[in-house]
């Protein structure tokens, strides 16, 4: 089978596989670009990568196919997902363009570039296919190993240095040196008392709201939402849901329904205001 796969002519099975999976890969790629939520993009990309791994296998690159699955989809994409979670899984991006003309320019450039690439490939005389039968004769991994440790040994060593540098760099970038001891619970509560604000625990979210959820700000007596009631992380991500208007709308709808039931004319707001002033 391996000899067959690596041969010049491709089998009908491979053609079928290419067309089906190729379509899926393109859809995955497009989804990566156009999905609103980063987590969806990441999943689409992971799918595309797995399909690419299958294509590697089909092209006789067995080692790379496996590595693609293990390293890319297994490790790198998971890293992406971690970061996505750190930034906010549910945060949806607006796809509305803010830079004037950017989208059209980008599409134009993309289209032009794509056409040029395809034309370039079409123009190239790619008629001779040698197939990997000979090269993979002693096994793909052995062949690669022979090349890596002979011809490409310097590049290989340098990649090692690069990986170490990258690891150190990532640590340096994300590491924050703590310059003072972390405050204990006791010290924090003492500080709160000394400063005289928020002496009791912060108000719980969802208070005065009909929903009881952590991302809904509790309403103050005058109906405005209080940001204090929502966790700091959500506040910073801008993931607070404001339902204060919802409640008023619901109330208005309820009143309207009651009035319809009682067949009354709605109260003129102007009259109401005057009555209020008179009562004062």
């Amino acid at each position, binding site marked *: 089978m391996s000899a067959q796969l690596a041969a010049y002519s491709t089998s009908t099975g491979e*053609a079928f596989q290419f067309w089906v999976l*190729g379509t899926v890969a*393109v859809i995955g*790629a*497009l989804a*990566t*670009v156009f999905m609103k939520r*980063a987590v969806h*993009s*990441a999943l689409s*990309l992971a799918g*595309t*990568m797995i399909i*690419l791994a299958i*294509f*590697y296998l089909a*092209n006789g*690159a067995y080692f*790379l196919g496996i*590595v*693609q699955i293990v390293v890319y989809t297994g490790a*790198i994409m998971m890293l*992406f997902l971690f*970061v*996505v979670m*750190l*930034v906010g899984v549910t945060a949806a*991006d607006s796809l509305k*363009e803010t830079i004037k003309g950017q989208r059209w320019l*980008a*599409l134009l*450039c*993309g*289209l032009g570039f*794509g056409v040029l*690439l*395809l034309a370039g*490939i079409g123009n190239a005389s790619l008629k*001779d*296919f*040698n*197939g*990997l039968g*000979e*090269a993979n004769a002693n096994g*793909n991994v052995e*062949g*690669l190993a022979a*090349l890596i440790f002979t*011809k*490409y040994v310097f590049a290989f060593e340098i*990649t090692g240095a*690069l*990986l170490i*540098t*990258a690891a150190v*760099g990532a640590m340096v*970038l*994300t590491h924050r040196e703590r310059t003072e001891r972390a405050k204990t619970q006791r010290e924090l509560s003492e500080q709160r008392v000394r400063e005289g604000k928020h002496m009791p625990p912060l108000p719980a979210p969802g208070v005065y709201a009909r929903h009881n959820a952590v991302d809904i700000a509790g309403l103050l007596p005058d109906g405005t939402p209080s940001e204090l009631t929502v966790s700091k992380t959500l506040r*910073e991500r801008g993931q607070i849901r404001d339902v204060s208007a919802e409640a008023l709308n619901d109330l208005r709808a309820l009143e309207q329904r009651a009035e319809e039931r009682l067949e009354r004319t709605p109260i003129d707001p102007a009259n109401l205001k005057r009555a209020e002033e008179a009562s004062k």
Partner: protein
Amino acid sequence: MNPVNYLYLAALLFTIGATGVLIRRNAIVVFMCIELMLNACNLAFVTFSRMHGNLDGQIIAFFTMVVAAAEVVVGLAIIVSLFRSRHSASVDDASLMKL
């Protein structure tokens, strides 16, 4: 089927990735699009390897993967620290390089 089709697919994926880089604002998605472009290149390398009947193309793809891994590590670290300081992962928010 002619294996050249793999190259066409690679070109298509590369273009999609590049366009994505240009039109998305979320740094993480931009980064994913870059990964997509790298993968498209890898597909092309693997196909070239098959065309020429030697393993050099696969070696290059292998090195690309290694470099991509390193790049992801550093890139994500940058995104994390950026998010930490600016509370946003939008590349447009970091538009300080102007007068």
